[in-house]
């Protein structure tokens, strides 16, 4: 009798242990994903605020200043307002396409964040095809835009959707060829490996110096991919009202709004990762490792420094994109397509061949 009780108690105890182990494992799987999404959301709010403040500065007027300190909560207030707006669906539109379009755009962009190394080996999933995943996913977002434009049954929306698709696929080829050159240099498609390859020689090891033409082409192409001025033809407020977004209201419009800033942020992150050394903190002619001897013992400190450096570089490019928006006029569609097909494509292809030649000679 005593033996039986002991066995029963042991069985219950181990069963409880196994249950806790499973719960713990599940929590540990979801925790980093949720943290990443939370960070992305906060970044989008920051970018919206940055855009308003920078545009106000460029145009010599006052930006948001009442909601929260320095108006930092303005984006949050705007988002809340969008949640409470009525969700209209055009009577003669295609309801399914109309509803799914914004979701496809947002979801496809958020997935790309899983391969960004925010610090040294600090990445949600270190895929050996990380960059390739981003390129594949960035091909999906225009499908959402085309569905939205088509589903609205509005001439402005339809034309905006067509322009969005044409623009995106036109600039995807130069963008991909630039990434290909980076992969040739780094011998890998993994974002972590690309960052590591740039840290060998410190500051001068960045791909910015080894791929100057690729860097410029990549900047222009990513700006076009994000549909930022001077490449905002799919929206083109003076011509198409708001392009594919014309018929949208409430949270669906909010999703498009968020998707554009998510896309901008991830493009800036990839410029940082591919060309500016990622979390590499090297400064020319200063031996940073001597100042940070503590690095080797405090891992959290290193990670925080890496995140800070990565975001600092990223916000440099965000600033460039935002300043570009308020200083340059819009291109025509023929100029846009000519730039993509007749200039950026040959240049990026030549850059790739040049990289191949140098690799062959080094072999």
């Amino acid at each position, binding site marked *: 009798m005593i033996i039986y009780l002991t066995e029963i108690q042991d069985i219950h105890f181990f069963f409880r242990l196994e249950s806790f182990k499973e719960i713990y494992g599940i929590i540990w799987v979801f925790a980093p994903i949720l943290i990443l999404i939370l960070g992305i959301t906060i970044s989008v709010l920051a970018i919206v605020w940055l855009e308003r403040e920078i545009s106000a500065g460029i145009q010599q007027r006052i930006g948001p200043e009442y909601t929260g300190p320095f108006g930092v909560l303005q984006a949050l207030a705007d988002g809340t307002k969008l949640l409470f707006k009525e969700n209209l669906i055009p009577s003669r539109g295609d309801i399914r396409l109309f509803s799914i379009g914004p979701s496809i755009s947002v979801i496809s962009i958020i997935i790309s964040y899983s391969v960004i190394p925010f610090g040294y080996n600090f990445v949600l999933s270190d895929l050996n095809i990380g960059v390739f995943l981003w390129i594949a996913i960035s091909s999906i977002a225009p499908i959402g835009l085309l569905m939205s434009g088509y589903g609205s049954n509005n001439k402005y929306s339809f034309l905006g959707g067509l322009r969005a698709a*044409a623009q995106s*696929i036109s600039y995807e080829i130069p963008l991909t060829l630039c990434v290909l050159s980076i992969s040739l240099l780094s011998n890998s498609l993994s974002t972590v490996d690309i960052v590591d390859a740039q840290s060998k020689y410190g500051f001068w090891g960045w791909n910015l110096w080894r791929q100057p033409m690729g860097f410029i082409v990549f900047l222009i192409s990513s700006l076009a991919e994000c549909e930022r001025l001077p490449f905002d033809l799919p929206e083109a407020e003076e011509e198409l009202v708001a392009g594919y977004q014309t018929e949208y209201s409430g949270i669906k419009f909010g999703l498009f709004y968020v998707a554009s800033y998510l896309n901008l942020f991830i493009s800036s992150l990839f410029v940082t990762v591919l060309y500016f050394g990622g979390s590499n903190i090297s400064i020319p002619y200063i031996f940073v490792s001597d100042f940070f001897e503590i690095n080797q013992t405090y891992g959290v400190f290193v990670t925080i420094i890496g995140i800070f450096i990565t975001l600092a570089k990223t916000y440099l490019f965000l600033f460039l994109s935002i300043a570009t928006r308020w200083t340059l006029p819009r291109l*025509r569609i023929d100029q846009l397509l000519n730039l993509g097909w007749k200039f950026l494509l040959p240049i990026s292809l030549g850059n790739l061949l040049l990289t191949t030649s140098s690799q062959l000679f080094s072999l």
Partner: protein
Amino acid sequence: FLFPLLPIIGPIYPKKLSAYGCGFDPLGDARSCFDIRFYLVSILFIIHDPEVTFSFPWAVPPNKIDPFGSWSMMAFLLILTIGSLYEWKRGGGRTKERAIPTLNQLIRHGREEKTTHRPYSSFWDKNDYLFKI
């Protein structure tokens, strides 16, 4: 749980769901036709996409190949480059012939369609359809 109450709370106005800027029923379908150049851009993309797709396994280390493999890829890219130059020469990407219509032009064109009289016939004959790239 308030959704079942919505029809009671607020009446549904049909005009609210009409297309942008319309005070009347829209004429026809907005997706009737579009400029062929959008389709042409897609064709160009289809040509260059396999170029990029085949280049990735060639560039990545597990498939790092000897000079023979590299020169094979050079030949492949050369063929595609010749095709691109041919397309360029043939004017497939040429889009300078027509400027983008502004909103005013679209409105004017919409008005012109109502009447048979065209005061600027020399201009409109060159732009005979509504949608332009």
